[in-house]
Structures are given as structure tokens and as C-alpha cells.
């Protein structure tokens, strides 16, 4: 009996140890972006999104970010702009309600800096991207900050005349600030 217990305990230590799963504190987290309109910047964010966040610097192989965004929850704080964003010309949320980001791998860049390789899918178009981020752990809490630039025209966000980038800029800087707890 004792031998079996020992064997069981031993087995536990060699079982694949999953990277820690983190819970997002949505009240203190923001999935935002900065875009431009006629040379002027404006900010926006998504109100509704969920993510599975498994991350451990010691176990990058088992780490995973799996983010699902309710695109219709986009807001840029403007009644003159926001009503158009879910429309066919922009995000076409009726047909493409969800945007996703799912990592395929991670690499450490030293200190708190990492890069997540992953696939972002918006409006049904997928693109492989590198997402540089910092991950700072303080006890049971972690803070993540990530920024990258997406080309909105790759995803067809802005159809027809709006595909031209003179009025609405091509680059959209995605800015992610998360507070997580394990």
C-alpha cells in the first residue's frame, strides 16, 4: 500500500505540469487600440471579450493565449463614428461577430519581455503576427502589456472607398493592458 502511494506521488511529479492558468480582472484590463482619422488620433476599445491565459515563463511550451473578442462591443467614444463600425463597410459583425487571437508559440526576450507568435483573425481573415509583451508577476498577480500594429486593410476593415487610407489611416496600434490573478 505504501509502495503504491509512493509510486502515485512520484507519478504526480512527472505528470505534465500545465503552465499556470490566469484569471483576467476585467475591471482593470483593457483591450484597446489607437487609430487615425484624417491625421488625427482616436482611441477605442472592446467592451466584451474573453481569454484563456496560460502562461509560465518556465513553461513557454505549455503557455497559451486564446482570446475571443465580441467585435460588436467596439467603442471609440463617438456617436458619429461608433454606429458605423459594426456595418458591412467596417467589421461586418453580423457575419463576423468574433475576432480571435490564438498563440502558436512563445519566446523569451530577457527580463520581463516576451514575444507571442500567434494568429489573429478579424472579419474572417487570419494573419500570423508576433506580439511583443511584458509580463510582470507580483505574488498572485500579473500585469501584461502588449502593443503591436495591425494593417486594417489586410483584414478588409474598411471596404470599397474606405479601403483607401487617406481619410482613415492604415495602421491601427493595438494596445493591451491586462491585470491577471492566478
Amino acid at each position, binding site marked *: 500500500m505504501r509502495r503504491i502511494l509512493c509510486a502515485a506521488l512520484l507519478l504526480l511529479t512527472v505528470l505534465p505540469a500545465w503552465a499556470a492558468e490566469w484569471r483576467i480582472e476585467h475591471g482593470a484590463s483593457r483591450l484597446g487600440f489607437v487609430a487615425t482619422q484624417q491625421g488625427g488620433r482616436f482611441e477605442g476599445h472592446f467592451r466584451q471579450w474573453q481569454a484563456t491565459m496560460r502562461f509560465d515563463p518556465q513553461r513557454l511550451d505549455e503557455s497559451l493565449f486564446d482570446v475571443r473578442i465580441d467585435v460588436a462591443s467596439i467603442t471609440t467614444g463617438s456617436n458619429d463614428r461608433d454606429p458605423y463600425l459594426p456595418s458591412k463597410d467596417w467589421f461586418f459583425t453580423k457575419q463576423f461577430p468574433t475576432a480571435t487571437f490564438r498563440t502558436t508559440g512563445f519566446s523569451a526576450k530577457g527580463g520581463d519581455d516576451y514575444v507571442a507568435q500567434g494568429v489573429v483573425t478579424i472579419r474572417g481573415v487570419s494573419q500570423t503576427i508576433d506580439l511583443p509583451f511584458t509580463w510582470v508577476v507580483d505574488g498572485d498577480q500579473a500585469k501584461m502589456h502588449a502593443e503591436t500594429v495591425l494593417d486594417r486593410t489586410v483584414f478588409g476593415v474598411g471596404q470599397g472607398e*474606405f479601403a*483607401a487610407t487617406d*481619410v482613415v489611416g492604415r495602421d491601427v496600434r493595438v494596445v493591451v493592458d491586462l491585470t491577471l490573478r492566478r
Partner: protein
Amino acid sequence: MQWRNTAQRWGLPAQLFHWLIALAVFALFVLGWVMVSYRMSPTKFQLYSLHKSLGLTVLLLVVLRLAWRAFNVTPAPPTGSPRWERRAATLTHWLLYALLLAMPLSGYLINSAANFPLVVWGVLPLPNLTGENEQLQAWAEAAHLAMFWLLAGLIVLHVAAALRHHWLLKDDVLRRMLPWCGRGG
């Protein structure tokens, strides 16, 4: 070339201010009506931008114009006009100035409350006066439209009065605002 105003005649800067602003205001009226009814498209955005840049330029021109006016004599009203006419003229002129200031300011307020970025003529970024505010935006839009009608009405009155002076009363009230008409008319 006469630069400063005299008791009889507006100087060239005052004349330029008058006609540049008149031209800009006319363009603003046309742009304003076209842009609101234009279909949603990049062109619509560009029409709005043009309207905003031109409107804020008028704001600057009016401020400079009032400063110039303050440091110059103002040509006297024609002798022989009844008192009420002179009062009506003075009131109309100051209402026009007030509206020429209030129109761009209310437009700037609409843009601010709509939380739109504003880069004047594509080069000068202006900060918004307020954050997004739906109620304020609706209020500023109503004011902008009401003031448009008041301004349009006053301009009709102003033009009619100038033509009356020129054609009926045959004085030089209109001529002294025209750059190419000789001294003393």
C-alpha cells in the same frame, strides 16, 4: 494704396478682411449643406474637414479683423441717415461679428463633443474642448443651425442695405468697402 481707415473710407486691410470673410462664409454655407446630405464616404469626411478648417480660419480672421478695427478709426455713417437706421446698422454689424465668432466656436464644440480628432488644414492638430458628450453635441448642433439661419438673415439684410445705399440713396457706403474704387468715390 490706403492702409489705415479714415473717417471716409475703409483701408485695404479692413476691406480684405471683409471680402475674404464674406467669401469664406459663402463657401461654408455651401459646404455645410452639401456635407450633411452627402452619402457616407471618404468624400463626406473630407467635406467636413474642409468646412471645419475654413470655419476655424474665419474665427482667426474675425479676431484679427476686430483687433484691426479697434486700432483704426471707423468710417462714419453717411450724414443724413435717420437715427434708427444708424442704430439698426450698428446693431446688425455687431450681431454679424458676434455670429462670425459664435458659429465656428459652436462648430468646434460639436466636433469636440463628437470626440472627433481635428487637424486644421491637415497640419495643425487642435485639442478637443470636451470629451464625448451626446447632450452637449445635440445642443451645439441646434445652436449652430439656429445661428446659421440668423446669420443668413442678417447677411441678406446687410447686402440689401448696402445696395440700397448704393442704388437708392446714392451714397458711398458700399463703394468705400470696395478695394478698386478710388478715394472718396
